[in-house]
């Protein structure tokens, strides 16, 4: 009986760990430089548009640093799509070298 309980607990922990690892494997964080965010009061549109995008888990946009830090599920969206979303708000996502 005791062994069964131990096996059950160990099994549950392993399944949970696997789930967390799988979720973490899908979650990526990217920092994208954004050009033109000179007015703090209009840059909030960038984070609003990003957060409304499917697959985006969090987005922090800084007009001071001129960048957006985005946490996203790479099974649902990708960096190219995120750059398109930024560009659709009137600002310009700066392309990384090689893109």
């Amino acid at each position, binding site marked *: 009986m005791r062994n069964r309980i131990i096996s059950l607990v160990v099994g549950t922990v392993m399944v949970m760990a696997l789930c967390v690892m799988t979720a973490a494997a899908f979650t990526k964080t990217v920092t994208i430089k954004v050009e033109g965010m000179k007015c703090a009061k209009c840059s909030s549109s960038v984070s609003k548009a990003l957060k*409304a995008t499917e697959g985006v888990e969090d987005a922090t946009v800084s007009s001071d640093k001129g960048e957006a830090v985005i946490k996203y599920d790479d099974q649902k969206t990708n960096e190219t799509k995120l750059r398109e979303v930024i560009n659709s708000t009137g600002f310009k996502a700066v392309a990384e070298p090689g893109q």
Partner: protein
Amino acid sequence: MKKRSLLRLVLTAVLITFSYASVWGQQIKAPDFELRDVNGRTVRLSDYQGKVVLINFWATWCPPCRAEMPDLVRLQREHRQKGLQIIGITYPPEQKDRVRRFARSLKVNYPIILGTRQLKARFSSDETLPLTIVIDRDGKVSNIIVGILLREEFDEKIKPLLMKNAEGGIRSAKSNH
């Protein structure tokens, strides 16, 4: 003694309820204005009673404002018959010629007014641009959209208002055309 305390408590509760209701009532009624647009035509908010009005505060130097304007032009064209009326108000104040040139270049199909700080303050103290005030067919502010107007927001917050008559009735297919 107990009865008096109870009565006092009830009266206080009623008073608080009424004062909150009165403040709420003042907040939701959109303030009227009468101004000339960049083409010299008079625009009164009260002239659009019975329509769903979007007051879009924007600036020529604001990238998201410029990015959403083609969408606003499209929405005005597609939903005009259903009773949508967009009014663009520049904020902070800008030069008339610059605004008129900009509006012409985008073929803006709704009135554009040169705003003032006082006018903006009557609607919202939020300094974010763009900022869109959503007014229902009864002339009440039903929503304030901060930042660029997303398609999902239009579907969720504005489309249902277009489906309703003034006083909250559902518009029939006939009244939609």
